[in-house]
């Protein structure tokens, strides 16, 4: 349940997800006004605590908070307890003593937002932790698919790429599965996590089989530095086997859409042409990200003092 924060989609019930999505569609309307601001979180303080650098997600949270009139503070300490004098928990407790209404946390190690949340009074929103979860990304992806398809139930969603190291994959697997979709994953065997079926998905080593009948094709960003980790031999081979272009997209349903959490390595996960135009919906995902994060901030930062009176 939400209440104390948003740490993982794995923790959410279907009703929680529906509440967030409903709220997000209302928030989207705010972003379409000439004056994109409502007083809902006036006087509330939100801290963006980003141990791992991220321009896109941090900016999205910052704009979301500002559109709700919250005071948003960005703090990007050096990233590891190993390389600095202050532990992550001390950093978090210090910020907590300044009485924020919500703390948004990104860290490159899985579990850190939970470890911090266990010590904090303010609700914690996980903005991505290692290869664990990135819940707001999955929720904005759900929102985008609902806009496109009108539903989630009964859809087939294929996630392609480095599933093992992807927090986006884990959150999306939980999110789409909980909402009634069939989720498949595909990638080189070196990029599929151990016992991946435990997540409730079917794993494929053949892109063609994985895409057969898919309504949603989600390509993940390939981290090129993984070459050194012996996960794949070359960008050329990856692109040829698991990169999506219009020819390979024909294996999926005719009306399939293509998603990507960004930023895209053009010509690697997606062909340049597909990254630019429909059926890819990448910029819709970004646009919905602001509305979705407004909804999450409203539901968490707004409730602390008895709930907002206006939205």
């Amino acid at each position: 349940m939400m209440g104390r924060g948003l740490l993982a989609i794995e923790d959410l019930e279907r009703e929680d997800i529906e509440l967030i999505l409903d709220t997000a569609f209302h928030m989207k309307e705010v972003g379409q006004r000439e004056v994109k601001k409502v007083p809902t979180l006036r006087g509330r303080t939100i801290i963006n605590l980003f141990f791992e650098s991220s321009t896109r997600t941090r900016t999205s949270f910052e704009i979301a908070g500002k559109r709700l009139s919250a005071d948003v503070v960005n703090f990007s300490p050096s990233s590891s307890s190993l390389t600095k004098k202050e532990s992550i928990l001390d950093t978090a407790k210090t910020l907590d003593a300044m009485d924020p209404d919500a703390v948004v946390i990104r860290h490159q190690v899985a579990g850190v937002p939970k470890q911090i949340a266990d010590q904090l009074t303010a609700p914690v929103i996980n903005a991505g932790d290692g290869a664990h979860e990135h819940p707001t990304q999955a929720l904005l992806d759900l929102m985008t698919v609902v806009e496109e398809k009108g539903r989630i139930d009964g859809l087939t969603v294929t996630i392609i790429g480095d599933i093992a190291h992807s927090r986006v994959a884990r959150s999306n697997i939980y999110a789409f599965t909980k909402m009634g979709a069939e989720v498949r994953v595909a990638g080189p065997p070196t990029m599929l996590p151990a016992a991946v079926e435990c997540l409730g998905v079917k794993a494929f080593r053949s892109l063609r089989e994985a895409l057969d009948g898919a309504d949603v094709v989600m390509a993940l960003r390939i981290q090129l530095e993984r070459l050194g980790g012996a996960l794949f031999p070359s960008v050329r081979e990856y692109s040829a086997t698991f990169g999506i272009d219009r020819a390979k997209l024909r294996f999926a349903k005719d009306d399939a859409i293509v998603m990507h959490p960004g930023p895209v390595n053009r010509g690697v996960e997606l062909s340049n042409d597909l990254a630019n135009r429909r059926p890819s919906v990448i910029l819709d995902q970004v646009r919905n990200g602001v509305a979705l994060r407004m909804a999450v901030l409203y539901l968490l930062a707004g409730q602390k003092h008895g709930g907002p009176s206006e939205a």
Partner: protein
Amino acid sequence: MAGRVWIRGGHVLDPASGRDGRADVLIEEGRVIAVEALLEGVADAESIDARGLWVAPGFVDLHAHLREPGQEYKEDIASGGRAAAAGGFTSVACMANTNPVNDDPSVTDYIMDRARKDSPVRVFPVAAATRGLAGEVMTEMSALVAAGAVAFSDDGKTIMDSGMQRRVLEYSRMVEKPVMVHAEDRTLVRDGVVNEGAVSTRLGLPGNPAVAEVVHVARDLLLAELTGAHLHVAHVSTAGAVALLREARARGIHVTAEASPHHLTLTDEAALGYDPNTKMAPPLRGKDDVAACVAGLADGTLDAIATDHAPHAVHEKEVEFTAAPPGVLGFETAFAVVMALVREGKLTPLQLIACLAWNPARVLGLPYGKLEPGAAADLVLLDPVQRWSYDPAQGYSKSRNSPWAGQTLEGRVLATFVAGRLVHQAARGAAAA
């Protein structure tokens, strides 16, 4: 208490003699004088009523980190020795990863000296197998044994170079001491911090595959066979390693092995909350691995239960899971934790005491772990059913890193004697939860 002590009416468990029943134990001047059914009329003896309790030889721990010299903020020989006594351990083998490393007789001398002055229990240094645990130059095994070393190990700094490991095993035959290995192939472990499988996938943490241990055990068994050396495999955690050890023993390879209380009772699911106090090396494994390790103890494939007592300061564990040092406290909880195996019918009480006392003493060739007339009066009184609440802050170790913190445990060490001297005593029944 150099005088006579008459321990009356307890259930004596002595694996060395096979005694498993009610008897009195008489000790005097640091030695066991008699173990006989219900003595009568013993004069001038302090009498202890042990009815309802187990009387067993003091436990022998093959694997502990006492942290002195160099890391006294985690533990030292005095605090570690008191914690060991509280856990029923009367002999403790301490690993060489101190600072400086115990790779030189001067360091072994220092440890022996501190132990004589500070520790209520016997301390047996395990010296490094290679200088600085670097895996490049062998230590002076002969001089180290003369100083008191009982075995050799680079422990967590596993010797990956197979040629080097072969030489270490070969050379160890000269001093006839076991070479203890932390069997993990580091090229397979890589950055793994939890067991590779459903748990690592759900947590999104790097996995450490079981095969990393199995591959390394296979290598070292073959090298032990080649060299004829005594190989001792530390903290076995996988079904694959147990199977290889079973086969190796059948082939006559000189190998012994231990498992730790956490690998015998906890699975990788304990790590699902990202608590760094569930991070160990090797990691907690799946339930099939746990079952195989327990079965290995029961059929004698594994000899001993060893704690791998590994104290770390609170601030060192309150960090990212990946950054936390591996290891947990072991001394004070070991008996209660492994009593679960007896309650579940996996081990008999006599087998359990064999794994905690007699077998590990034999692995190191120590004259302890038995309760026969003439033996050193190292013994424990155990309440197999007392329930107590474990709070590391109330314990004797300087550190707090335990996965059992706050839990109610069943089975308690009520008294520990070393050479006839009472070094630990807990209230009978008073701490029941």
